[in-house]
């Protein structure tokens, strides 16, 4: 019955409470554990920071409510498949993304600067990337670790400042996407989500309360295309933007729109969660209202069941609240759509589209 699908969702606060009482999985840091103060990672001049891609790194961001039920901070929990876990307290305005090559990129803004760091859960160390005067809202790291892409807003006016590419070696940053201009049709921008496609294109979705304006930058040609009027983007497949429709709530349709303009194609009429993976974004994984997860090959249109039982695809992108090191193109499924520890998630193979145990896919 559909009723069970909605009630199966486990709120985060329950997870935090379970952690505090010691009944959660062994990989969780207990609330009473001392906060982690990572030492600096060893660095080699001119070489990008690099972690251990085989460590099975994962992270989870837990927003913390203070005494007055107001956001008072964020707790970043990160660990490895071997079980080592660290806990880091961050400011209310904070993010984390990745992991990429064993490193979790995190940013935390104290009201004066945004501090960007790469965290290595396996070695228990951190590499400072930058201290930025503007507010870095979110960022992602390129697969080769040479640079990060960060979205910034002005500290005083909160005006959009565009997307910047920052070298992880030199710390220098250059703007690669202009600020999204204000437009009453879209209202104030609530979130800007950054994603990378398998072929290296950058997807930046600037979303108002309902409608998004999504830009796709091809760094090899410099071409920027833009699609307006969808919901948040899931990614790009070839010349198609795959995105949520601009729904008022859930369930919601997932559609593909030609990057050059044209009529959309409905890929899933009523999904509760979705993610794009596979080779070149050819695999759309969706959860229906009954809680069943299926994969659709966007090249053939063939849809196959993948999983059920409360597993949901992780949303991904720079605004994700959890993540795990995964094979390129694979879609990660986890209970409630969030990674809780290093064990409870599963991955959908990008080639076979079959669900695999995590350990089978970690190199």
């Amino acid at each position, binding site marked *: 019955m559909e009723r069970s699908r909605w009630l199966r969702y486990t709120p985060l606060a329950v997870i935090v409470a379970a952690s505090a009482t010691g009944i959660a999985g062994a990989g969780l840091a207990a609330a009473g554990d001392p906060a982690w103060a990572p030492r600096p990672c060893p660095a080699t001049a001119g070489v990008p920071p690099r972690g251990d891609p085989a460590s099975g790194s994962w992270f989870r961001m837990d927003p913390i409510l203070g005494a007055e039920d107001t956001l008072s901070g964020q707790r970043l929990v990160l660990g490895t498949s071997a079980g080592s876990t660290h806990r880091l307290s961050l400011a209310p305005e904070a993010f984390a993304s990745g992991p990429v090559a064993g490193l979790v990129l995190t940013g935390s803004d104290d009201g004066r600067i945004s501090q960007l760091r790469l965290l290595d859960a396996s070695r228990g160390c951190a590499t400072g990337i930058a201290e930025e005067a503007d507010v870095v809202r979110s960022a992602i790291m390129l697969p080769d670790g040479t640079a990060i892409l960060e979205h910034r807003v002005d500290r005083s006016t909160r005006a959009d400042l565009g997307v910047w590419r920052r070298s992880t070696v030199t710390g220098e940053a250059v703007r690669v996407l202009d600020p999204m201009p204000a437009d009453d049709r879209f209202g104030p921008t609530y979130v800007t989500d950054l994603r990378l496609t398998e072929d290296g294109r950058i997807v930046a979705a600037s979303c108002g309360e309902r409608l998004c304006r999504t830009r796709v930058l091809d760094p090899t040609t410099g071409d920027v295309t833009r699609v307006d009027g969808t919901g948040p983007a899931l990614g790009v497949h070839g010349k198609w933007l795959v995105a949520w429709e601009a729904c008022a709530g859930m369930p919601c349709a997932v559609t593909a729109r030609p990057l050059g303009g044209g009529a959309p194609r409905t890929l899933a009429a009523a999904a509760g*969660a979705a993610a794009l993976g596979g080779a070149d974004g050819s695999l759309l994984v969706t959860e229906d209202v009954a809680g069943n997860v299926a994969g659709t090959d966007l090249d053939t249109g063939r849809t196959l069941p993948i999983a059920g039982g409360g597993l949901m695809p992780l949303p991904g992108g720079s605004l994700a609240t959890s993540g795990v090191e995964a094979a390129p193109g694979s879609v990660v499924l986890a209970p409630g759509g969030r990674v809780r520890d290093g064990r409870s998630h599963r991955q959908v193979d990008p080639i076979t589209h079959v669900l695999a145990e995590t350990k089978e896919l970690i190199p």
Partner: protein
Amino acid sequence: MKPVRITFASAVTAAAVAVALGASVLPASAHSPDPVLAGGLFAQNQALAYRWGSGGTPPSAMKTAINGAAADSNASRQSKAPTFAYASTGGNTIYYGVDVPCGLNGLACFRRSAPDTFGIWLRENGHRYDWGTLRWCEMTGDPTGCYDAENITLDELGHVHGLDHHVNYADDSDYTDAVVQTYSHAKPKVGWHAHAFGRCDVATLQQQYDVASSTTLYSTCLDVPSSLTLAASTTTVPMVSTVTFTAKLMSAGSGRLSNNAITGRVVVLQQRTAAGWADVLTMGAGSSTGTYTASLTIGVDTELRATFRKPAGEGLRGSSSASVLVVATSGCTQIPCPRAPAP
């Protein structure tokens, strides 16, 4: 349009081009009833009980706001849309807190699985967006720039009913026609603390669930045709006899708004004169729903009809019945007899 070329290495920023403007961006029409969400409806007058989400019990100020919104919905639905009430064993959940599962953007969101369940999630006070920090008015002492949780919850409850966002004029001049809006307004922008469904919300609720009763006013966001019939107790009477007329006023819209008896309106009995139709009297309430009656003394052949004029504060069209000719036969008691030929 030719795309702008940029490269990472050149450090050149570029304007985004090649806009494919989604059809949903621009309003197709305004001042219409709210669109309807896909996914079906709940039952008429279905009682939907909600409890606080596990791990997401709202603080007391938010509880008051949420319960207030439920009461607002019940009081302003003007239809047979479902009712909402808190119950600790309720089968639906309303959640306040840090873990909102439906989407990245927005102040709150919902999931609906009509006709079984719904869920509503309100983000935590202090949540950070690109534009700044979310402040719920009820939790922060009502400062400028805060969002009214009761209003936002009422918007979500409208979605649970099946309402999609109202389509406004480009200048938003009709913003107060609906609470279920694409863009929420922070204090003090117009409509920021509306605590009753707007007329175009109500219009769709009436279309989808029917009006609450025969006396319920039809939303002025609608333009529902009406139909009126008139019957006489007899159509052939001796001169100067009393005839009783009965009119019946019905809605003549489509779907739920067809063939509804309409009570409590003003229906007048009119007589055809050389100058046209003239009001004779206002008909009173009849014995059955939607009927109006009047008695009239007929001295001469008289052609009559009932008329319902379009009310100023209601979305019903006016209508007139077909005329009824009452023939007064000989045997009159007046001298000279009105039907007698002129001397």
